[in-house]
């Protein structure tokens, strides 16, 4: 099992603990684990694409930044707008709906992860956390279907800052 898969399982377990009276700590950690499961899914894939040297891959993965992945995801999402932004000309239309769903889940879970880890004024409800962990599970499945596409490659290159900001 990969770290990404283990984190996803952990998120499901935490979201299901104490169903009648879940602890906020469990729900918050479930959101965080769900986000990081997608984060590691994507950076592990990118690292393997960049180098086949397994000794190098962890260091390549470490170089990825959360904000860069979010910016790349937003650029993929924005391709459906009337005037698609860069790097629209590098992408094949239409963008696979699986990739768009992965990007949507990533952007939203990154923000929710910040709230779960830092905003103690917010109370998380179990049902809402189950929704978000479900989105992460779906993102894993969608990524498996779209990871080999040319558009997924462009997304990973954008995330790695290996394409210019135009």
């Amino acid at each position, binding site marked *: 099992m990969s770290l990404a898969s283990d984190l996803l399982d952990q998120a499901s377990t935490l979201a299901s603990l104490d169903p009648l009276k879940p602890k906020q700590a469990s729900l918050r950690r479930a959101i965080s684990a769900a986000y990081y499961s997608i984060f590691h899914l994507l950076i592990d894939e990118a690292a393997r694409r960049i180098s086949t040297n397994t000794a190098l891959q962890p260091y390549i993965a470490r170089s990825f930044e959360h904000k860069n992945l979010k910016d790349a995801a937003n650029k993929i999402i924005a391709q459906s707008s009337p005037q698609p932004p860069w790097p629209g000309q590098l992408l094949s239309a239409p963008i696979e*709906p699986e990739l768009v769903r992965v990007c949507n889940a990533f952007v939203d879970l990154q923000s929710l992860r910040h709230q779960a880890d830092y905003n103690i004024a917010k109370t998380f409800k179990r*049902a809402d956390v189950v929704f*978000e*962990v*479900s*989105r*992460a599970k*779906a993102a894993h499945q969608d990524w498996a279907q779209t990871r080999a596409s040319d558009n997924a490659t462009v997304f990973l290159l954008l995330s790695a800052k290996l394409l210019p900001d135009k």
Partner: protein
Amino acid sequence: MTFKLDEGSKRRIEETNGLKDHVSAIHAEVQANEDGQDVIHVLINLLSSFSISDPNVEAGVILNNIASVVRQRASELPVSTVISFSREGEE
């Protein structure tokens, strides 16, 4: 600030595979994100019939589809969007 789901948005959501009758309302407000930038936080209320006891892929695909449609509509706005879900009547 709260927006009621207009007919155009509702139709686009309903026309997306499998989404019909899941959404009851959409609420939105502008907040600063962790970087201090303005972000539209969209809370999508799901009908109480959209009930799942444990995380599952099928529900996740539906929710990510809804998020895609709503974010597509918000793409004309000059600030980024964060979408989350809640079930109506949930305590």
